[in-house]
């Protein structure tokens, strides 16, 4: 069985047929993906799956990573944070560091391709190759929230990204005033991955036992890094309010406390705020805990994602895919995943979160309906196959700029 066929139980035969047809229209197209790391992070995770799938439908797709010095990656980390709004002053030395790494990679990499698909700011400077080679389409794929950058941050990359033929963003509010077409392509989850595959009841129970959780009370869960922007304190406060009326336990599962000093501080504060309440389970999990996260989500009654700021918030799609009712902050890409009262609940306050925890625990039929609707919404919009389709459409659009209805 080839890899694409494994998705048929989730999306049906028609969707796979369309992917193969699109592949025929792009047969032999050389697509080169470039990002900055082979491991870790959502981009690498997606490329690992998508590159072989694109080849399976007939494209000639490959994936390269740029190499850089430590200075370069410190700079791009600062750039990443500044694009998210954290103040940073860019210097002439920064500019030179960026240019130097770009030049070294231009010499090292074979950029022979029909489509150059460049992910995030780190390798964006490779567009310089266009000065000497023509005939390729250049796409800049921005995976981060650039809606409210710190002063100077967007200006640092704008002269580079403005030279691309097309840009791709994950949510509508991330769009920038750019002259080139800006395409909306949301990220996706892989239904075959450890984090999302079906688990047997006994697998779930074994994992919960190992984590010290009993499922004798309804589980209200947030899965997130221990980060203030995910508002774990707000979740705890909301749960305390709700459980005065409905008996339930709270699971806060996440990581990021070992390599991030701020994460460790947030974890410490939340442990103090929870005290010794036996109904609160705070789990600091290693980054490889995919199957554990899967089991926790599947065992939960209600899942919260009360973010105050969010890139896309794929944990929402993960929860919906498991048919769970979700209560989530209306920020970043979350409103694309949750339509209020249809496929989940959107909230803005601690009180609102508490109110909806009570409602959903007390009205399981309504909660179940939200979860089922959410699962269908994810099936149609946030699975890997849709992501693959959108990438192929973007490649095709390079040859049909400014047309609205394109007959293939």
């Amino acid at each position, binding site marked *: 069985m080839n890899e694409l066929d494994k998705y048929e139980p989730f999306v049906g035969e*028609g969707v796979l*047929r*369309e992917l193969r047809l699109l592949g025929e229209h792009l047969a032999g197209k050389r697509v080169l993906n470039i990002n900055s790391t082979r491991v870790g992070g959502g981009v690498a995770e997606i490329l690992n799956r998508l590159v072989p799938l694109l080849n399976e439908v007939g494209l000639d797709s490959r994936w390269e990573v740029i190499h850089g010095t430590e200075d370069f990656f410190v700079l791009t980390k600062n750039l990443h944070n500044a694009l998210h709004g954290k103040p940073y002053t860019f210097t002439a030395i920064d500019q030179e560091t960026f240019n130097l790494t770009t030049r070294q990679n231009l010499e090292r990499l074979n950029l022979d391709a029909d489509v150059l698909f460049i992910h995030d700011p780190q390798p964006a400077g490779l567009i310089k190759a266009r000065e000497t080679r023509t005939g390729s389409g250049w796409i800049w794929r921005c995976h981060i929230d650039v809606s409210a950058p710190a002063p100077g941050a967007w200006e640092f990359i704008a002269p580079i990204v403005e030279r691309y033929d097309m840009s791709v963003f994950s949510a*509508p509010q991330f769009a920038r005033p750019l002259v080139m077409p*800006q395409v909306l392509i949301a990220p996706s989850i892989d239904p075959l991955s450890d984090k999302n595959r079906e688990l047997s009841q006994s697998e779930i129970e074994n994992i919960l036992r190992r984590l010290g959780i009993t499922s004798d009370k309804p589980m209200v869960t947030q899965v997130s890094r221990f980060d203030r922007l995910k508002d774990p304190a707000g979740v705890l406060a909301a749960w305390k309010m709700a459980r005065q009326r409905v008996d339930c336990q709270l699971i806060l599962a996440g990581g990021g406390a070992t390599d991030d000093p701020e994460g460790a501080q947030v974890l410490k504060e939340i442990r103090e705020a929870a005290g010794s309440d036996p109904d609160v389970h705070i789990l600091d999990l290693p980054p490889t805990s995919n199957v554990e996260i899967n089991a926790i989500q599947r065992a939960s009654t209600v899942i919260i994602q009360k973010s105050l700021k969010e890139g896309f918030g794929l944990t929402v799609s993960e929860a919906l895919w498991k048919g769970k009712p979700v209560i989530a902050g209306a920020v970043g890409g979350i409103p694309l995943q949750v339509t209020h009262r249809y496929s989940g609940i959107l909230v803005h306050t601690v009180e609102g979160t508490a109110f909806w925890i009570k409602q959903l625990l007390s009205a399981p039929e309504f909660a179940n309906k939200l979860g089922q609707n959410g699962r269908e*919404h994810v099936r*149609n919009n946030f699975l890997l196959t849709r992501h693959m389709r959108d990438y192929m459409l973007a490649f095709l659009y390079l040859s049909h700029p400014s*047309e609205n209805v*394109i007959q293939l």
Partner: protein
Amino acid sequence: MSTLARAAVPFEFRSSLNMTLLTGRRARDLAELLEHLRVVPGAVIYHHTHRFLVQHQFLSPEPPNDFAYWVTNDLLEEVLGEELASIDVLRFSTLRELREALIRTIENFIERTGNLRAAPPGQEFHFMQSVSFVLPTGQRASDLRTFHEILGKVSLDSIAYHMFDARLRLEQGDNDFSKWFQDALGESKLADAFRRVDPYTHTAEGLRRRLLGLVEQRLKELQA
């Protein structure tokens, strides 16, 4: 098995795959919404009145258009939200007419009430545009039974293309299925039954079931 009428011209199932372009246009209140509505390309109107149908295949019927959803949930203007939701898209044969109806409804509301409440920061309306890639699926039907078989298997995008795009976006005035029933099979009753289905009141899977049911009924009649 009885012999079914065979069409000289088979029905070719096509599918329309949509890509979403971001326009960078956003509205905070009704005045800004109107301002953009007047000038955006038809592909933007199409996106916000049909996106729900293909993207949100809920088990319950979904909010019919993005404008109504935003006005109700973000501006909290329930009356206007209801008015926008109840615009009967089937009445219009062009996107231009649909755009005018949306504009008129909002203008009337502003005249009546003067309400120009702003959405909270972060909840602005973002205008987007659909680019459609029309793709022959390679599936062809020459008689009703084969048609029924394929209709049960094609993607929901394909059904949406023949029911929505053909009529409104390509301005053919009729859905593709009815046109073929009538012209190629002489099945004008079935053609009419398809025309009467309001695709905007079904979930996408529900719409498929409803259309399959109509064909099944006709197949039974033919076999009787």
